[in-house]
Structures are given as structure tokens and as C-alpha cells.
């Protein structure tokens, strides 16, 4: 047990460091679950109206692909239909962020070495991080379940809802625990863990859209996010699924411990390689450096999005066209934010999901400006005749270009695979256009990150929060009947209704100009502040 010595102290430290992050995230998750349940129940107060209004649409594979299966055609199940899956994804992300923050990040930054020299067992940092993450997942799930029950939803169903989030969250704690041990850098661990979330989402989408009983449908049981959906709160209420989440947690942590016992502090499973003794031609300035440091990220995302795009495209086949009922179309439009066929609505929604993920990648690149500063790298660069604007601009430029590249890749892959799979699917050109049309909103979020990084490094990570809120407001705002001006605050609200609709050139231009203004404001602020 000496290997666990100091766990309690480290846990206390971790709780202190996360005293804002975790409560704020949990609060956000609660607002998401309870707010949208409340709003849905206002529109569909009883099972009859619910069944009449949305029941059929929700059996539509396009919607199921995005949010998972509907438990039952009841008002309760409908009230949480979107938030089971969105919450499961967000809880998973919270879990992986917490685990990574207190393990690999600490190790990368050299602080763990200081701690490890004290009376701290080898397993203690991992144990405290896992404990904290498990605690955060359980508290978020339990409060959400209790809140739903308090809103008057079915008790057992509310418990199942909590189980659904907890299953995904706990499984992700296990996966993240393993990822942070296997990878040798914070970014590598993030790539593995976020990749696992993406893969889990895609496998789930493929499984859930397949016909029940088929092999592909069974494949959904391989994904922790698939489990979250298949708990089917307010329907089948499969509480035992929690066991699967706990199982992955145990297996993941056991595997992590096994790796931990075999590797050196600061290392991963793969040994560090040496490299060239002279710099290549491209490594000659801030942009060359930023691009070089972003290469790994770019490659990882391209691989991930090619695979993901292929899955999204191939699902076009299993998504049949829906009856041309105007009332249904109206609701579909509200959900998908697009006008047109089921395939088009499906594409529009998936594209938005990809866009927010890609925006997150871009924000990560822009925030390397402050990460470099925190690490102490910036002063070496700015002590040379490099203009601050140049250094700032290089980071922002990669943050702007990366999403454009990635959305192009996604558009091409989805369009190509989709149009091969189904004759009714939008073609490559249309898909690419829809994909690229999201860029102005993505750039606004990049602009916010740039402004924050330029003006105040301390608060720069708020850019993640801004992106998340913008997305959730854009996605759920209309359902939750938020005031129009709040919904309008999200850049995603102003995107063109593509495919199917027409390109809103004025809005796109306005968003792009706003993004440019934010970037410029950040440059001005960066030129005026202390760099430490």
C-alpha cells in the first residue's frame, strides 16, 4: 500500500485546483439536462401530445444517428432525448480532462517530479486523479437524475438517466487513465483520449442506425457512448449497463497501473527518439515553428476525420427518406437547422458537430500562444528581433487554417462516401459547400480565443467555455425556448442552412469580419501587455 501513500494529500490538492472547473462543469451539465427537459415538457406536457408530435420523427435514423435511440414515445423520454447523448459526451470529456490534468500534464510540466520525491507512492497521482474524476462523474450524474425526478419525471427513469451519464463517464475515466500512461506527452494523451471519445461516438452512431438484431447494431455494444444510449432512460431503463462502465473503469485503471509500474517518470511506453542536428529550411520563423509544432495535431485530426467522415457518409445509406409531411418537416428543421431531405438534415447536423470539434482543435492551437508563455518559451523568441504581432499572428494563423483544411477533408470524404452509398445523399460539391459554410462561425470562436490569449493569458482557457456555450446555445437554445437574443449570440445561429437552403452571404461575411476584428483586437492587446 506504500504505492498509494500520499493519495489523500494529492486528492486534496487536486480538489483545490479544480474548485472552479468541476463545479462549473457540473452546473453546466445540470442546466443542460434540466433546462431542456423543462422546456420540452412545456411543449409536450403529456405522453399523448409527445407521441403525436415527435414520436415518429425520433424513430428516424437520421436523428437516432445523432442522439441515440429514444427510450419510449413518452413525454419523459422525449424530454431528455438530446441530453442523454450530449451529456454523456460532455461528462466523458470532463472525466478525461480531469484525469489528464492531474497526471500527464503534471508530469510533463515537471511538477510531478517534485511531488514524487516526497512521501508519495508511485500510484498516488493516478489514484487521486481517478478518484476525483469518478467523484465528478458520479456527482454530475446523480444530481442530474435527482433534478429530473424533482421536475416530476419518472423516478426509475431518472435513475436510469443518471446511470446513462455515469456509464459513459466512468468508462472514460478508465480509458483516460490508460491513455495518460501510454502516451508520453499531454498532447499525445489528449489525442488518444479524445480520439477514443470520437470513435465511441461513431461506433455508436453506426450501431444505432442499423436494424436491430444485425451485426452492426450489436457493434454499438462496443462503445461506451452506445451503452449510454442503450440504457434507454424512461423506456427500457437498463440499469445493469452501469456494470459495463464500471468494468471499463476497472480494466483501464488496472492497465494503467501495469504500465505505470513498468515505465520511468516522464516517459511513456515508447522511448524518445533523436532527430536531425540541423533545422530544415521551413523552420526559419514564427510561422514555420507554429506550423511544425501543429503538424502532429493536423495529422491526427485528418486521420480521425477521414475515418469519421467515412462512417458519417456510409450512414447515408441506412437513412431512408421520410414521408413528405409538412408538420414533421417543420420539427425536423428545428432539430437539424436545415431545410430539405432527411439526408440533408442529417448532413447539416453532423456537419455542425464536426465544426465544433474542429473549432476546439483550432482553439487548442491558438492557446499554444499562452502555453508557450507559461512554459517560458516566449521570452526566448521575443528576445530576438521577432515582432510580437508576428509571433501572435503565427499562432492565430495556424488556428485559422487548420479548421479550413479539416472542414475541406470532412466535406470531401463525407460527400464522396455518402454519394456512393445512397443516391439520395447530397453530392460532393454540396457536402463540401455545407462543410465550408460553417467556417465563419468556427473562426469567430477562434477569434475569441485569440483575443483572450492576446489580452489575458490567465483567462485564455475560458475560450473553451465560450465555444461550448456557443454550441449548446445554438443547438438547444430553440428547443429550450431561450430568448431570441440569447440564441442570436451563438455564431452557429447565423450559419447558412446548408445543404438544402441557400448560402447566407451577408451573415457569413459579417461573422468573418467579426472574427477578423477579434483577432486584431487580440494583436493590439498582445502588443501592450507584459510577456512573462
Amino acid at each position, binding site marked *: 500500500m506504500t504505492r498509494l501513500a500520499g493519495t489523500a494529500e494529492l486528492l486534496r490538492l487536486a480538489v483545490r485546483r479544480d474548485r472552479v472547473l468541476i463545479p462549473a462543469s457540473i452546473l453546466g451539465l445540470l442546466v443542460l439536462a434540466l433546462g431542456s427537459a423543462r422546456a420540452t415538457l412545456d411543449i409536450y406536457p403529456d405522453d399523448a401530445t409527445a407521441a403525436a408530435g415527435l414520436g415518429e420523427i425520433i424513430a428516424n435514423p437520421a436523428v437516432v444517428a445523432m442522439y441515440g435511440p429514444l427510450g419510449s414515445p413518452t413525454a419523459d423520454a422525449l424530454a431528455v432525448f438530446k441530453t442523454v447523448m450530449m451529456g454523456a459526451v460532455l461528462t466523458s470529456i470532463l472525466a478525461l480532462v480531469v484525469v489528464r490534468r492531474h497526471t500527464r500534464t503534471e508530469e*510533463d510540466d515537471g511538477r510531478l517530479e517534485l511531488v514524487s520525491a516526497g512521501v508519495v507512492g508511485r500510484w498516488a497521482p493516478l489514484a487521486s486523479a481517478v478518484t476525483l474524476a469518478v467523484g465528478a462523474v458520479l456527482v454530475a450524474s446523480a444530481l442530474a437524475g435527482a433534478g429530473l425526478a424533482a421536475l416530476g419525471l419518472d423516478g426509475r427513469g431518472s435513475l436510469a438517466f443518471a446511470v446513462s451519464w455515469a456509464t459513459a463517464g466512468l468508462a472514460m475515466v478508465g480509458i483516460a487513465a490508460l491513455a495518460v500512461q501510454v502516451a508520453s*506527452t499531454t498532447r499525445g494523451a489528449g489525442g488518444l483520449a479524445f480520439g477514443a471519445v470520437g470513435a465511441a461516438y461513431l461506433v455508436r452512431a453506426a450501431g444505432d442506425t442499423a436494424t436491430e438484431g444485425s451485426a452492426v447494431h450489436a457493434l454499438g455494444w462496443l462503445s461506451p457512448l452506445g451503452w449510454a444510449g442503450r440504457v434507454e432512460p424512461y423506456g427500457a431503463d437498463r440499469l445493469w449497463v452501469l456494470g459495463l462502465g464500471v468494468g471499463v473503469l476497472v480494466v483501464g485503471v488496472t492497465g494503467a497501473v501495469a504500465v505505470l509500474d513498468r515505465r520511468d517518470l*516522464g516517459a511513456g511506453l515508447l522511448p*524518445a*527518439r*533523436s*532527430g*536531425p*542536428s*540541423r*533545422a*530544415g529550411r521551413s*523552420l*526559419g*520563423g*514564427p510561422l514555420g*515553428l507554429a506550423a*511544425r*509544432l501543429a503538424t*502532429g495535431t493536423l495529422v491526427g485530426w485528418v486521420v480521425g476525420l477521414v475515418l469519421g467522415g467515412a462512417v458519417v457518409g456510409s450512414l447515408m445509406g441506412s437513412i431512408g427518406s421520410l414521408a413528405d409531411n409538412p408538420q414533421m418537416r417543420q420539427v425536423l428543421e428545428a432539430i437539424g437547422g436545415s431545410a430539405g431531405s432527411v439526408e440533408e438534415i442529417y448532413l447539416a447536423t453532423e456537419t455542425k458537430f464536426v465544426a465544433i470539434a474542429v473549432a476546439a482543435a483550432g482553439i487548442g492551437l491558438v492557446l499554444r500562444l499562452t502555453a508557450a508563455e507559461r*512554459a*517560458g*518559451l516566449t*521570452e*526566448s*523568441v*521575443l*528576445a*530576438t*528581433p*521577432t*515582432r*510580437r504581432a508576428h509571433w501572435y499572428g503565427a499562432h492565430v494563423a495556424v488556428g485559422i487554417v487548420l479548421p479550413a483544411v479539416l472542414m475541406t477533408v470532412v466535406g470531401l470524404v463525407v460527400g464522396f462516401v455518402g454519394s456512393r452509398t445512397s443516391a439520395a445523399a447530397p453530392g460532393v460539391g454540396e457536402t463540401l459547400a455545407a462543410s465550408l459554410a460553417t467556417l465563419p462561425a468556427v473562426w469567430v470562436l477562434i477569434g475569441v480565443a485569440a483575443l483572450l490569449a492576446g489580452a489575458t493569458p490567465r483567462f485564455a482557457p475560458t475560450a473553451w467555455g465560450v465555444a461550448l456555450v456557443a454550441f449548446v446555445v445554438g443547438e438547444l437554445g430553440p428547443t429550450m425556448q431561450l430568448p431570441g437574443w440569447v440564441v442570436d449570440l451563438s455564431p452557429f445561429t447565423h450559419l447558412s442552412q446548408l445543404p438544402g437552403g441557400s448560402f447566407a452571404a451577408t451573415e457569413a461575411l459579417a461573422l468573418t469580419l467579426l472574427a477578423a476584428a477579434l483577432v486584431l483586437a487580440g494583436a493590439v492587446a498582445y502588443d*501592450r*501587455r*507584459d*510577456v*512573462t
Partner: protein
Amino acid sequence: MTDAITVSGLRKAFGRTVALDGLDLTVAEGEVHGFLGPNGSGKSTTLRALLGLLRPDAGTASVLGRDPWHDATELHRDLAYVPGDVVLWPTLTGGETIDLLGRLRGGVDEDRRRHLVERFELDETKKGKAYSKGNRQKVALIAALASDARLLLLDEPTAGLDPLMEQVFQDELVAVRRDGRTVLLSSHILSEVERACDRVSIVRAGKVVDSGSLAELRGLTRTRVRASLTDVPDVAEASRWPGVGDVAVDGTHLSCAVEAEHLGTLVAELARRGVTGLTCQPPTLEELFLARYDRTSPAYEEVPT
């Protein structure tokens, strides 16, 4: 001789911490200037202000005739810097880092680069993450020394170097001085400062408390004198002699500390009292600095500032 650096009344606060509290500093062109002071006294902050990374709250600074905050980019063409905490890009090799920093400065002097890599025995193919502390330091040193900057700002440049490498650094510093370049060197290693520096400035709590050549600073600190006398004075009497303090009497032995300017008077007095043995010890470098670093040291109060 013109001045490479002139700073007057520089103030910088971080929230409630006052890092620089009216700092004055002059570094002449072509000299190697030592910059000493206890931990947290403001040395690194001063260097960052001289680089234009920090905007001073008050006071003026001029580096190579330029305002560092407003003309940072122009100024940096003539200047090289080794930060106090050397951090390297984890995924770039040492060689790539040296090239990158060199190119950012406008080009790499290949001969000098090769010479330095050889002298410091650096393995350039390792990734930043894999270097030991001393080797990280070498990368930063080579990048700075390979430039033909007129002014070098070095923040504890030998931290982590082994004695052999420290010697290499000293040699390179001699070469830099021979070229007529100016160096501002912050350091905690007194022997290094003694060997390399023409003048030193001592900073404490954000102020320069002493500035001058080591000989001048030595003159400001008291010499310790021990004498065997036939006619031993009592402590109170001896303490009244001009410039004398810290008196102790033990049998026929008197020991005391005396300011350099009063040493002659003291020796005459001792001669009258039948001195049979006499040792005079100038302050060691350590004593010199301890007296100035420690604000609670009694010796400090007697040091005229």
C-alpha cells in the same frame, strides 16, 4: 566610454509584489558587468524589462540608446539573451533550436556555431525533452554566443553547467570581451563574477545597493584585525576608536573589524600598545556579499550606500 545600458528609477510591481523599486543601473559599453543579489531581488525582472518584455511602471531605461519597450524589435537585432530558466521546445532537437533562434535573429554564423558546439560538446540530435538541465543551458548559451550581438544579457548562464563547461564559458566570455562586446551577467557564483567582471552591481529588494569594481566594493567593507598586545584595552575603549567595531578581548588578544580608511590609525594605535602579533584579513568575497545581501546583518548597517 559611452553607456550600453542606463536605467534610472525603474519600478515594476506585480500586483502587490514590488519587484523593482527605483532601480538605477549603468553598464558601460565594452564591459562585463556582474549583476548580483539574493533570490527574488529583481535581477531577472530587470533583464526582462531591459528586453522590453515587461513594461515598467515608472522610471526610464535606455539600452544601446533605445527605449526597450518602444523599440524592442530594433533593439533585439543587437542583443542576445539567455533566460534564467531555459526551456526548450520538447519536440525540436537542440540543433534545430539553435538554428531557429539564430534565424529569428537574422542568420547563423556557421563558423562560430560549429566552434561553440564543439567547445561545449553538445549532442545536437537530442530532443528538447530529453536534455539534461546542463545540456539545455548549453543550447541556450550556444544560441546566444553564436550571434554577433553587441550586447549579451545573461541570466545565470552557468546554472547547471559542470566545472569543465563553466571553464569553457569563462573562456568564451573572455573572447566576447576581447571583441569589445558588452555583457550584463546575473549570477550567484562569486568566483565567476570575480574572474569575469569589470564591475558589479548588487541589487537587493529591487534597488541597486552598490555598484563599482570589486576593489572598490572591498574598500567599503571592513577588514578583520587580530592583534596580540602587551597593553590590552577594554572593549568599551577599543570600540570608541574611529571606524572600529565588533570588538572582542580574550586575554592578551584583541580582535575587531575596521573600515579600510581607518586601518592606518588603528595600526598606529596598536603599535603604541606593544603589538607582538598582528593579522589583517581583508573581507572574503562571501563576506562582502553576505553583508550586502542580508538586510538584518549588523555589518550591513555600517556599509555606506
